[in-house]
Each structure stands twice: as C-alpha cells, then as structure tokens.
C-alpha cells in the first residue's frame, strides 16, 4: 500500500470528506435491475458507483443431505472475473472469492429467510438445490455489499421451472416464487485510522485497517458478520460498526 495515499485519505477524513468527495457514511449511487439473464431462473444486476455485479440463480433437482432428508439447500459460488479488476486472475477460486461467496451464503442461510424444508419435494429422495452464482463485472470496491444485495434481488426474482416427473423443463417457468420471509442486507463498515466509513472504494479498500461486514434483518436482528483486515477491533468499535451497519442496511433495503 502506498503510505502516501493512506495518509492522504486520513488527512481528508479530518474535513469529513473522502477521496472521491463523498461523506464518510455515504454510499455511491446504487441501481438494482432484475431479470437480466434469460436462461437463469432468477437474476439481478447491482451497480454501486462503478462496481458492478451480476448474480444468477439456477435450480436443479437433487438428493438431500443424509442428515437433513427433508430439506433442500443452497450453494453460493463467486467468480472474480479477470476483466473486472487488475488484481483478479484466472485459476482456482482465490481466498477473496471464497470469502465473498461465504459471506453472501451465510447472510442468506443464517437469516432463515429461506425455509429449506419448503424446498423438499419427496423426503429423503428429491429436493430443490438453489445455485447462486456471483459474477463480478467491475470491481471498484465494496463487492460484498453489491453481491449480497444482488443475491437477494435475484432470489426475489426467481421463478421455479416446470417439472415433468424427474426432469426439469428449463424452457418454461411457472409462476411459483420462492417464499422469502425477510431480507438480509449486508453492509461492510471499514475502519481507517480512527474513522468508520461505509462503501469503500478501491483506494480505501487498500488502505483499510479493519473491516466488518454486518448482515441484518428489517427488525435489526443480526444474522452474520465477517471481520477482515490486519488490525484488531475493540468492543466499542464493533458496536459502532454494527449500529452503522443496521442504519445503512435500512437504506439499502428500500432499493429492493
């Protein structure tokens, strides 16, 4: 990290400004589009400033896990496309990609927004498996927030395909939607110096001391958290970050 840039970022914080002119707790403009991929059962494109993410949901029939014979499941995968950032390369998923997928997965799974039992068709034999795939189109910082927002929008957009016996007819969609109980929203709060900011840009992401992704529900219930960065957080920091995460989560939820 260029120390020069980091000290410049911290210097700007003193006048309540960020390197791109935003306030400390201000998001870049966000747009959410759904139904962007025809062949997917559900899809969404989310842009936060110049960051752009597409999420597609595919469903398939499969066998349930032996320990949960009456429950379907979800699988989240993230692909950091090399075209979206100079730091991403082809090959097996990087740590960053795995973390991104797991943060999104945990937000959805632990919020209990999806009743996995409703994805069961025949106990012990046949269940729906939802494959949620995240593709980064452009990384200008803050992929976790964009991805989890897009994943939720894609799940809301999803329609089940027609089933003939054991085969799925992907050409025809039914009107049956997923039953989503609530909307878990992830907000990444970043600590640089002694200030907390949301929606970090690429430069801020490189300069961060610590980050905490907070996934929460409408009523303020926390459903998942993920800490990153090299420095430790105090209990006070964490409670401030959670408060900020909840507050910003409400703003993001209005966009859906």
């Amino acid at each position, binding site marked *: *990290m*260029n*120390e*020069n*840039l980091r*000290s*410049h970022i911290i*210097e*700007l914080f003193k*006048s309540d*400004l960020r*390197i*791109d*002119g935003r306030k400390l707790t201000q998001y870049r403009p966000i747009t959410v589009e759904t139904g962007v991929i025809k062949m997917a059962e559900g899809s969404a494109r989310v842009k936060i400033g110049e960051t752009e993410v597409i999420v597609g949901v595919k469903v398939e029939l499969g066998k349930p896990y032996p320990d949960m014979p009456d429950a379907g499941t979800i699988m989240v995968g993230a692909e950091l496309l090399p075209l979206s950032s100079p730091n991403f390369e082809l090959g097996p998923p990087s740590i960053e990609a795995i973390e991104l997928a797991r943060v999104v997965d945990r937000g959805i799974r632990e919020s209990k927004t999806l009743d996995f039992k409703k994805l069961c068709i025949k106990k012990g034999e046949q269940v729906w498996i939802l494959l949620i795939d995240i593709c980064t189109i452009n990384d200008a910082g803050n992929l976790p927030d964009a991805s989890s927002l897009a994943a939720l929008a894609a799940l809301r957009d999803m329609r089940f395909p027609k089933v003939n016996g054991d085969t799925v007819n992907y050409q025809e969609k039914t009107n049956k939607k997923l039953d989503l109980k609530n909307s878990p929203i992830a907000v990444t709060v970043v600590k640089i110096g002694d200030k907390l900011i949301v929606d970090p840009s690429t430069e801020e992401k490189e300069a961060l001391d610590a980050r905490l992704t907070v996934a929460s529900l409408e009523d303020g219930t926390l459903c998942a958290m993920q800490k990153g960065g090299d420095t430790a957080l105090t209990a006070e920091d964490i409670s401030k970050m959670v408060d900020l995460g909840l507050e910003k989560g409400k703003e993001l939820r209005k966009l859906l």
Partner: protein
Amino acid sequence: MGKLIIKEKEIAVPGELLAEGMDHLPGAGTYREGEMIVAGRLGLTYVDGRTIKLIPLSGVYIPKIRDIIICKVIDVSFSGWRLDTNGPYSAMLGMKDATSEYIARGADLTQYYDLEDYVVCGITNVTSQKLVDVTMKGPGLRKLTGGRVIEVDSNKVPRIIGKQGSMVTMVKQETDCSITVGQNGLVWILGKPANELLAIRTIRKIEKESHLSGLTDNIKKFLENEKSKLGGLK
C-alpha cells in the same frame, strides 16, 4: 500517380486505407503496405505536405524521448529502480541518474525511492526494443510526497496542459492546487480537500470534452460556477 483516399481531419480506424501509390509518406500512426498507406490506430488524419499522420484518439502510452512522466516504483534492484510508466513498457532509473547525492556501495536504495513511491522523471532514451531509461536530474524532476495521483487518457494530456501550459495554469490558479501532469497520463494533485476535488472534476471535464471547440472558455465558466457554488475557495 498516387491518390489520397481520405480527407484531412477525418476519423480513421486501424487497417483503413489512407492513400495509394508512392507519392505520400507514412507518418506517425500509419504504415506502408506495398503501395498503400494504412492506418495503424484509431485517430484523426492529418496531411502535412506529403506525409500522412494520425493524431491518436485512444490507446496506451508509448514512451518517447524527452517526455516528462510520472512513474511508480515497482522494483528496487542492486543498481537502481524499475518504474511503472503507466504503459506496456517499464522504465529503468539507474543510480547515476537518480540523485546528485553520493550513494555508497551497498547502500539501502529504498531510502531514496521506496516501492510504491511516485516520481516525476524525464525519459533520456528509448531503444528500438522499447527499453526505457529515465533520469531524475532536471528542473521539476522529484519524488512526489503528499497529494494524490489520478489517471487520465494519455492522448488527452496535451489538452489538459493547453497551449504553453495555459489550461493547467488556469486550473492551478483557480483551484489553488499544485498540479503536475505527466505525459504518460498520470496527474499529481495536492491542495486543500475541497479544492483538490474541484481540480479533479475539472480535469475529468477537460478529458471528456477535449474534442469540443471553445474548451478553455467552457472550463473557465465551469470553474467560476463551481467556485460560486462552493462559496469561494477555502
């Protein structure tokens, strides 16, 4: 008898036929293929006597001798520093050209320029294989401390600088910022927070509207408007 196929100041795309016959000569951005002169890149055509040139509209920075560029240190070796020129070729800064100070044998070179530091340097030589040598000896050549570096299209740099530096001087005066523009498209800016942001917005506007006529007047008006919105400079 040779034939000129394009008109002056027309947009040409790579591979486009510009002239036939041997009466014309290929200039910058064009090449000869048999009896034809063909465009090598996207640009505006410009006929200068018998020579056909292309003024590039896009593309990466290609190092040229005597250019003043802003570079990032990407490697420190035994005999000098390797710099990122914001283009496909990296540059070498030798110890002899780095500083007027005496550097003892085996000294730690990072105390002069460390990784990720930005420097303003001048290109002293570019070989046919595009090996680039740079120097830090010359007026205005220095290590950059503080401020920030932004990236612009290197083809728009002449418009950002303006005739005899008129445009950049105006932006500097109106925003009270220190600005250094590198030929390679990196621009270093230092000023008070709000002013710095205004300077960046202005440079982005110049970059976007560089092809329009009356650019200087537009930018002047823009700066006056923005300054009155901010309630003057702080």
